[in-house]
């Protein structure tokens, strides 16, 4: 019996090649998209949960309440960790971390050749670190490895890179590397590379003690907030609230009066670090907002539904063609159950093949994503669990998409079927088909409208006048400030370089690097101070970036003790000054006092998700360790040659400013790319479905078309037989999709400070594109029927 059904199933699938292929392709597309999204979401949700104690571990985050705003930081003052450890014995473990930071290392290999390495992810951790974060030790003693001040634990990857050792890591132990070419560090351990799904990315671990000795001011400063993170592990989760309260009353022991009032510490669960946007991205990590993950899942499910709807529609439409078979089989003794079984088996074949194809496609897609979306350090893998889940999806499709048509088809009464009188129970069947098609149109329109709005927003991003010039600008380190002048002169001697400037960073804060400070008038009280961004630039900074002076003058020179400020317009708003009024005013910031000598027009000093904030440019000699170089064609190689010639004991690296800026929008770009792809796939699936559906409808109406034609109907009149219905359905769908789309895109746009205005034509455009696609798809089939010779169709009856 089973074999017989199987054989018949394959034959009937082969016979209806078009609809079989449409079914398979549509279903595969749906499954692939759904699974890829699922695997992506699962991966992004799994960040840092591989630590055995992840569930009960927290990061301390800081809320700073200022007069005009509250700041949320994921970094805290360095002494916090140690103080918590000594004062709260009930906390299972406290660990203080600094970094990750960029450092260079001198390494001597076996042949006594020395080599310099630039390492961007150096993490300073104390010896308590492994009690909260799992490390997999490949060599060394985990209990003592981080105890000695001048020691270092390398990751496998660095051990390989530094010492060309890839298996016996014991041989690496005892070797010495030199930090910034001077401090010797003894290799005391080798650990496995941190997995990609961790916000804690490091290539080596250096004892925090070492950092502390070398940064005594910072590591004892309770008012400072640098790159320190404190993590704790509780005995059990329930202690979180109580501890937060205790810390609240405890902090005055260490914080000064001003800070005590405005700073509070909260516990952020370790496994929320990656998906919570409030505190910003961890140093060296990135954030995948929970909202994006949720929307992604919804999108995935809808695309799968879209594919399932196709499946249902095509199978039910096919039921006419199968009616005779049902009749014959029933007369020959088949009962309804055996027919349902037969049809389900037949469709299960399609589903099974679609799943197999999907599995292959998924694994290709994952590889593709891993290799293209490198900004997200993806390591997506198709695992057995996922295949298991696909089987569940398959069963789900069998239950919901294959069962229904099978039940409908098998219900046909034999007498009617054999007489070729289709049970025009179709009233309900017709409506069901119509509503399913409308559902598809709704989803397609949602995707289309979202894609249109998102693309306009992204376009807006790229076309907003940032207020400073940013093209063809290369940024390099300037590690030895005393050589900056030589570097500049050598660069400018070349025609491929037009301008050079030094400073702390470009006008827009990129790569998560931004200096902050508090400012007030000297006569104001400390707690009245407001937050501002602090930038250091040399005397050519304004000219280099084309920042426009509204009043006052540029710096003359940079000094060890800064004495001049240039501020932006937003800064003036804090005091209600006009540009001219500000000139000559004295301002107190955390680092000292100076006079405003110039006011520049506002420029986007934050990425476009955020508002322009008060900004102070200082004529400080500190922090001028970035070189900005405007290059023309061929300039890049010049920069490299000159750089390597001037700076020794360092490793050359560079970034284009535009590249760094676009990284600020990687989540937005992902959403954009995602919606573009999903909109196309949704359209594709829906088109496949419509196309398949039309072939059945046209077959059913062939006779009607022929009769009409014989009676004198024109081609367009005949076409409108089909197009009218779809036009109505698209319009109905639009009524549903437009408000839903409005709600979502409106919400999404809200997260941008600089956003496009929604306008009605974006929605109408989405609707029109859907209509056009629907009409083209359905005309394709009906045109053929309408142009055919009517006699042929009529004779067949």
């Amino acid at each position, binding site marked *: 019996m089973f074999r017989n059904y199987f054989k018949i199933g394959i034959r009937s699938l082969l016979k209806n090649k078009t609809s079989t292929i449409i079914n398979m392709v549509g279903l595969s597309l749906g499954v692939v998209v759904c699974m890829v999204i699922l695997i992506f979401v699962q991966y992004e949700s799994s960040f840092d949960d591989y630590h055995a104690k992840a569930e009960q571990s927290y990061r301390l985050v800081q809320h700073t309440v200022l007069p005009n705003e509250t700041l949320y930081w994921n970094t805290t003052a360095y002494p916090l960790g140690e103080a918590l450890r000594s004062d709260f014995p009930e906390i299972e473990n406290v660990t203080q971390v600094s970094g990750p930071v960029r450092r260079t290392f001198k390494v001597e290999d076996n042949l006594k050749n020395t080599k310099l390495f630039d390492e961007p992810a150096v993490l300073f951790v104390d010896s308590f670190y492994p009690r909260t974060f799992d490390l997999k030790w490949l060599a060394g003693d985990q209990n003592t490895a981080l105890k000695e001040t001048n020691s270092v634990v390398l990751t496998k990857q660095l051990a390989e890179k530094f010492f060309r050792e890839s298996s016996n890591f014991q041989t690496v132990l005892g070797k010495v590397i030199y930090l910034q070419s001077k401090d010797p560090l003894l290799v005391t351990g080798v650990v496995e590379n941190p997995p990609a799904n961790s916000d804690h990315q490091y290539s080596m671990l250096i004892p925090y003690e070492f950092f502390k000795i070398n940064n005594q001011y910072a590591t004892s400063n309770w008012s400072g907030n640098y790159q320190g993170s404190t993590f704790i592990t509780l005995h059990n989760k329930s202690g979180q609230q109580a501890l937060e309260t205790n810390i609240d009353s405890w902090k005055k022991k260490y914080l000064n009066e001003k800070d005590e009032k405005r700073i509070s510490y909260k516990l952020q669960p370790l496994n929320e670090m990656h998906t919570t946007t409030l505190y910003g991205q961890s140093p060296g990590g990135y954030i995948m907002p929970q909202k994006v993950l949720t929307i992604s899942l919804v999108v995935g499910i809808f695309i799968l539904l879209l594919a399932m709807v196709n499946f249902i529609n095509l199978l039910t439409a096919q039921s006419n063609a199968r009616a005779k*078979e049902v009749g*014959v089989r029933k007369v020959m003794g088949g009962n309804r159950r055996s027919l349902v079984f037969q049809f389900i088996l037949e469709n299960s074949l399609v589903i099974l093949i679609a799943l197999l194809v999907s599995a292959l496609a998924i694994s290709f897609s994952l590889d593709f994503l891993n290799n293209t979306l490198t900004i997200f350090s993806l390591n997506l893998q198709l695992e057995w669990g996922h295949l298991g889940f696909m089987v569940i999806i398959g069963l789900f499709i069998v239950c919901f998409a294959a069962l229904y048509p099978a039940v409908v088809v098998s219900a046909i009464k034999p007498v009617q079927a054999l007489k070729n009188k289709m049970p025009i129970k179709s009233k309900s069947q017709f409506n069901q088909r119509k509503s399913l098609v409308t559902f598809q149109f709704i989803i397609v329109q949602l995707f289309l409208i979202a894609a249109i709005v998102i693309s306009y927003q992204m376009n807006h991003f790229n076309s907003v006048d940032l207020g400073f010039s940013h093209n063809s600008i290369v940024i390099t380190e300037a590690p030895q400030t005393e050589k900056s002048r030589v570097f500049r002169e050598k660069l400018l001697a070349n025609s491929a370089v037009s301008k050079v400037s030094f400073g702390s960073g470009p006008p827009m804060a990129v790569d998560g690097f931004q200096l902050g400070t508090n400012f007030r008038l000297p006569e104001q009280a400390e707690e009245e101070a407001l937050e501002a961004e602090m930038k250091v630039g040399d005397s050519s900074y304004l000219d280099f970036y084309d920042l426009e002076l509204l009043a006052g003058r540029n710096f003359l020179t940079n000094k060890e003790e800064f004495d001049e400020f240039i501020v932006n317009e937003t800064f003036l708003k804090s005091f209600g000054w006009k540009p001219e009024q500000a000139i000559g005013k004295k301002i107190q910031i955390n680092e000292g006092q100076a006079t405003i000598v110039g006011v520049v027009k506002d420029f986007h000093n934050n990425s476009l998700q955020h508002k322009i904030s008060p900004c102070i440019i200082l004529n400080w000699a500190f922090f001028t360790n970035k070189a900005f170089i405007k290059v023309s064609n061929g300039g890049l190689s010049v920069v490299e040659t000159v750089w390597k010639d001037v700076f020794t004991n360092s490793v050359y690296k560079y970034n284009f400013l535009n590249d760094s800026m676009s990284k600020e929008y990687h989540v937005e770009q992902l959403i954009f790319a995602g919606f573009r792809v999903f909109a196309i796939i949704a359209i594709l699936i829906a088109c496949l479905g419509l196309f398949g559906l039309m072939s059945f409808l046209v077959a059913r109406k062939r006779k009607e078309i022929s009769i009409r034609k014989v009676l004198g109907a024109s081609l367009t009149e005949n076409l409108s037989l089909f197009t009218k219905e779809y036009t109505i359905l698209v319009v109905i769908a639009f009524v549903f999709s437009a408000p839903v789309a409005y709600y979502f895109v409106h919400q999404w746009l809200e997260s941008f400070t600089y956003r496009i205005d929604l306008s009605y034509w974006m929605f109408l455009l989405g609707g029109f594109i859907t209509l056009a696609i629907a009409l083209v798809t359905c005309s394709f089939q009906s045109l053929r029927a309408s142009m055919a010779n009517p006699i042929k169709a009529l004779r067949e009856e």
Partner: protein
Amino acid sequence: MLLQLNNIFKWVNSGGQRIFLLKDINLEVQEGEFISVMGPSGSGKSTLLNVIGMLDDFDEGEYQFLHESVHALKEKHRANLYKEYIGFVFQSYHLLDDLTVKENLEMPLLYKKFKGSERKAMVADMLDRFNIVGKKDLFPTQLSGGQQQLVGVARALIASPKLILADEPTGNLNSQQSEEIMELFKKLNEEDGVTIIQVTHSEQNAAYGSRIINLLDGRKV
């Protein structure tokens, strides 16, 4: 006695009016009879056949089949009854296009839960008996109409029914093919004792039977 219809009525309601498809039909069929049902289009021949075959319901009256009261049976029992005792032959053959001749013959046996070896033997026997062994792996569309109807009759016979219901079995065939099928019916009736009820328009075909029933507007005349 094989079956007996007593005062069978069947009607449809159309526009507030009751239109009778069958009106007070009384009929007794003995085993081994060969009956031809005749009458103009719309006289209720096919309806009567479908009622006898239990494919269609009736609204009033009694129907005894092998001493079972069909009108009192549940759908499922009724289906079991016709599966076991009745074979159908159709005007347009109604072979399944996706199945080969052999598979078409095998299909009813699958539903009757015969074992694989039994099925093979029965199919081989039928192919042999109808001289279509050479065609067993062909699909219906590769056969002529006469050959297709031959397969249709073979399929109806394969599970050894007591009664064959044939609705214009030769309606789509030319005269020579018709004659062959009718000869086959006659032989089945005389040699194997199969009861046959056929619907036909042709006097010539009706003559093969032992009794003729004439219908007009749902009534026996």
